[in-house]
């Protein structure tokens, strides 16, 4: 009986020592990995009718996470690249980054944006118009500056893009005529 008591006290002692040496492993409360919040945004694509082309919005859902602006543009590029016709964005263009500072969004695009553009001034107007209109829905973005591989893009062949472009500019409407 005395022997048993000694063993018990010894075991208790070891348990206490172990308790103080090793901190208990606390399993953190399982916070679910941030379920990607999806937000409805508008992306603008070309719609043609009766010698007229216009940029019309489509509602889509994108990640509201890290950079909703870049996500919206990426989604626009995916949308138009998946179709053969009515593609205002040069094929294969990727959004490399988008920085917003004091209302100016600097949009960094992959070189395909410049290298794969082939079109007349109306096509170029639609390319730039689709980008601007898509970004104009975000109140924090006032102006847009385009970059290709981190360097300012000045033109695609017709339009002067060498200054920040006002997203509120509303001249975009091609076509009509008498």
């Amino acid at each position, binding site marked *: 009986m005395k022997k048993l008591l000694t063993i018990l006290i010894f075991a208790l002692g070891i348990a206490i020592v172990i308790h103080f040496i090793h901190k208990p492993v606390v399993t953190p409360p399982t916070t679910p990995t941030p379920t990607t919040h999806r937000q409805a945004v508008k992306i603008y694509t070309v719609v*043609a009718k009766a010698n007229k082309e216009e940029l019309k919005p489509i509602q889509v859902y994108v990640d509201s996470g890290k950079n909703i602006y870049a996500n919206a543009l990426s989604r626009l590029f995916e949308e138009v690249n998946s179709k053969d016709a*009515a593609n205002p964005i040069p094929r294969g263009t990727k959004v490399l980054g988008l920085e917003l500072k004091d209302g100016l969004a600097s949009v960094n695009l992959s070189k395909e944006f410049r290298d794969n553009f*082939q079109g*007349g001034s*109306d096509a170029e*107007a*639609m390319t*730039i*118009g689709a980008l601007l209109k898509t970004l104009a829905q975000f109140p924090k973005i006032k102006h847009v500056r385009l970059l290709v591989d981190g360097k300012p893009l000045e033109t695609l062949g017709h339009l002067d893009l060498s200054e920040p472009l*006002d997203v509120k500019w509303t001249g975009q409407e091609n076509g009509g005529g008498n």
Partner: protein
Amino acid sequence: MRCVIRLTTIFFLLLSATLLGVAAPSPNRGVVILFGGKQIRLPSPARLIDGNVYAPIEFLKTLGIKYSLGKTSEGEDKQLTISPLHEKAFKSAVSSIENRDMICVTEIAPKLGLATSWNEGSSTLTIHAEVEKIRFDGAELHVYTSLPTTAQILSTDWAKKANKLILDVANAQPGNPRIIVENSTSAAINTGTQGNGEIVRIVLDLPASAEYKLTSPPKSAEIVVAVTKLPPPHTEHPIAANPPVAPPTPTFGPISITSLDYKNENSHHTQIYIYASGPAKYTTSVSPNMELIIDIPQATLPGSMLGMGIKHSLVREFRVEQSDGLAKAIVHFTRPTAYNIKWDEESSRFVIDLDLPKGAGGLLSQKTIVIDPGHGGTYTGATGLSGKFEKDYNFQIATQLKELLESAGANVFMTRRGDESLDPDVKIDLEKRVHLAIEKSADFFISIHCNSCPVPGARSGTETYYHDKDINSQALARSVHSHVVKLTGLPDCNVRPDVSISPIGLSVLRNSATAGLPAMLIEVGFINCKTDEACIGNPDFQKRVAEGIVHGLKSYVEGGDK
């Protein structure tokens, strides 16, 4: 044979009538003398006597030329000693006409180094200074003119980048200036004329990047530009700061139009006034028959108001119409005209400025035109449904245009001579095109393109662009566009400001506007539209496009319909 004799008789009769007309002008006709577009003020009017223009001697003073009247004994003719600005003094006879001391302007003008031109119809003598000498000593550019006149530096980013100093000397003709370059082995000076030959453009090519500044007084016979060398520029492109936010647009209520008036400034400029109880958000359009239509919403005209008679060479008719709540003011032009409308709060009126557009007047054969076939080389432009490139169509049309303009006697340059790009950087490629026009002192820049749209076949027709609010380029674009559409029959997709398709405009047009050069860009048709491309590839169609452009240019320069 008898017929020939009769014709010869008629010819001699006509000839003698003409000679008599010249030899016997109406005695002592009044003459207006112009310098710098303004009438020279004189104590008494100048006179035309026996084909010579006489003016009171004070005429010299108003031009900034010194003189002294020599003392003479009774009965002798008075002698005037005139000291030209850069030449030796000379003596000239003084005539007493209508009890005034007058000098014979037409006789002394060459001695003073003045260029003169006589307009018989309006009895006007126009005087121009001549550029006599241009000297660059490495630090200063000196331009010596026969009369004090104004000058301005044409300041554009790319002129700076290309190390060019461009100086426009007003109210001057090139003469035959001596050009001297000192202390610099690689600087070069070229001259040309601008406007209606009333501006001398001096282009100084500098060996390196420099800063320059006009240091002479605003009006001077020795124009001085100080040139300081700059360190090589940074290659980094800074991102420009945000443009300021536009103020909120005011709201407008109903207004009533009260009266009409106009004021002719001179034969090139008039102002029409529409007096109203307040401002309004008006819209404008120009019809192909050269009617400027101003729609003023929520405006009421007095029932009796129909318009007014305007006696001016730019205006055929001015009328007003009421249609429901809308008041319409319609100005029918006699020729392509530059217009600008503004609200004058102080006088509570709309002011419509009408001007003879820049480069208009004279003959097409006296003009210098730079034709810009869009794209080239590695820049293919749009691709047609046939797989052919826009750059080639542009060049074919441009070549036809060049031939037509040259046969009309105009001075023509092309921005590219074949299938080539002007620079590996597309931005610089576009800048170089306008740059050429400035160097050549061109009157007009005509860029030729073909369009494409994202949806193949969705669109068809001709569109013509001008830069933003450039009223001269707008008049040019309208004139050319209407003639092209008339000859080709392609759908008319209108004349539009470039800012309707892009926030800050099209590169070549914006750069031209900065340089004050009337410029337009025509998109002949859509090469990804089957019917349009079939036309654009056809040499006969291309010729009609070129003819339309020539007609439009001729109408802009010389007036009238063609």
